């Protein structure tokens, strides 16, 4: 039971809004120490347990370097931003008269989900698509319709751009038979003596994918409605609301 203290540290850390890196490290050490603790444990035992936990954390950290490798993307993205990529994205979308925030994000969401469903999960992502292209396009679509945007709406639109990417990816990728989660399920069942084919698994990801498509399409339609209502009554393009959003 004591090893669950680590989860408690994580939850508490987020509640008091401590630095998440600090929370993660504290949770790891707590877990390792709690696993080693007994009423008879002396300082020496606990010191060894702490050192071993740090070492196993370090091993995992080193094995997981590939996660942080993707940041080199930002060198290329930054270079294009320098040449006006975000501005170009806004101009391009402002020329499409029927574009709205919701419709634009819906098109991206559907493409993202469909591409992930055929295994093309690397088409998209927050660093390579959302920040340089999708978010500026969505903001541009809103600006073309409503004029300058208050900050609250700007941040709302950006958040929805990231959400469209995540939801499209999550509920598309499992339809592809060679994705990590499908292989994990197959491997797990196999070690428990149940043989399933990847195709059997991926077929049963389709009903949820359809549900996600329906639900999130409604959400994006509601987003458009919300923006339209917020700007209704202002006949001329609105002026920028200078007051920044108070952090909730």
């Amino acid at each position, binding site marked *: 039971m004591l090893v669950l203290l680590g989860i408690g540290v994580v939850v508490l850390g987020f509640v008091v809004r401590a630095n998440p890196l600090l929370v993660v490290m504290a949770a790891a050490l707590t877990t390792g120490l709690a696993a080693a603790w007994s009423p008879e444990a002396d300082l020496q035992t606990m010191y060894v347990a702490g050192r071993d936990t740090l070492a196993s954390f370090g091993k995992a950290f080193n094995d997981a370097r590939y*996660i942080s490798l993707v940041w080199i993307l930002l060198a290329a993205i930054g270079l294009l931003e320098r040449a006006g990529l975000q501005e170009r994205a806004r*101009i391009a979308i402002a020329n499409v008269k029927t574009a709205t925030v919701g419709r634009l994000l819906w098109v991206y969401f559907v493409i993202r989900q469909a591409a992930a469903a055929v295994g093309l999960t690397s088409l998209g992502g927050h660093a390579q698509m959302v920040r340089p292209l999708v978010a500026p396009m969505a903001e541009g679509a809103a600006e073309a319709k409503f004029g300058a945007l208050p900050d609250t709406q700007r941040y709302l639109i950006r958040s929805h751009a990231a959400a469209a990417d995540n939801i499209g990816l999550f509920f598309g990728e499992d339809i592809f038979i060679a994705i990590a989660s499908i292989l994990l*399920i197959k491997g797990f069942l196999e070690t428990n003596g149940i043989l399933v084919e990847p195709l059997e698994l991926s077929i049963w990801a389709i009903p949820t994918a359809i549900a996600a498509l329906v639900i999130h399409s409604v959400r994006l339609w509601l987003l458009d409605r919300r923006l339209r209502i917020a700007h209704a009554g202002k006949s001329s393009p609105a002026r920028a609301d200078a007051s920044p959003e108070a952090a909730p």
Partner: protein
Amino acid sequence: MITLEHAYIVGGFFFAALAVLSALDRANGRRLRNALFWGLLALSFWGGGAIGDLGNGLLALGLVAIAAFGLGQGKPPTTSAEERRASAERRGNLLFLPALIIPAIALAGTLVVQHTEWGPAVIQEQHKTLISLVIGVLVAIGVIMIWLRPPLLAPLQEGRRLMDSVGWAAILPQMLASLGAVFLAAGVGDQVGAMFAEYIPLDTRTVAVAAYCIGMALFTIVMGNAFAAFPVMTAAVALPFIIGQLGGDPARVCAIGMLAGFCGTLCTPMAANFNVVPANLLELPDRNAALNGVIRAQIPTAIPLLIANIVLMRLLAFP
């Protein structure tokens, strides 16, 4: 053959460059902290294999300590808003092309390794997409440098501009993955699963299905990763009760159960890659809040979708 180690050398070079350029940036009052932070990360990429497990643990501890004191925001030289607008007008939609080089090469490399005889001899098969992505980035930078002729240091300075806006959150996903490994070694998951099975009556289909799906989502919220929750909840609830006692079909139960976990991923700051990193990249003011803008945009989709998963599993899993 190009292996992950080669990609790590490129990554180490990028982070080392950030460290040096940060150290030289007098506009940043905390420039030495930034330099130390990115320098340690460069050390990890270049020498992580040589400094041993405890050495890597101390390195991670050092990164955490610097981040806890706080990083600064550098001011790398870049173009002004007017220059960018003028460049966007002048160059037109051609600007989109280099941005598409990266996913195109990532995809092409992956397909080549999968479907040709010679592909696996050129690129390490196990990490094909990641290595292809790195190649794509290098090619894209090369194309942009030749086409637009920015200053030679521009890719590194622009990279630093964006990395400083991401800040310490850059290593949060890697840290969380390491925490998951420690949790696994200590048996945290088994404890949670055992508690779940003990306190909830799992003898009817509806209750068992709802408990499994909600448990997947909740445990994913805590762990930040449905992959960590899946073996635990499936071993504790799905295998013995839904499949064993109540006759559920394993493929259908597991496929939908995993997706119920993904609903949890949408709601948690522990899924840093998906929910915290974009909040930083998009410069949201509430990026450090537990429920930042991205998560708040996702929760109203996640909850009805979790309910849909419960209904779908109840209807489909007992043929």
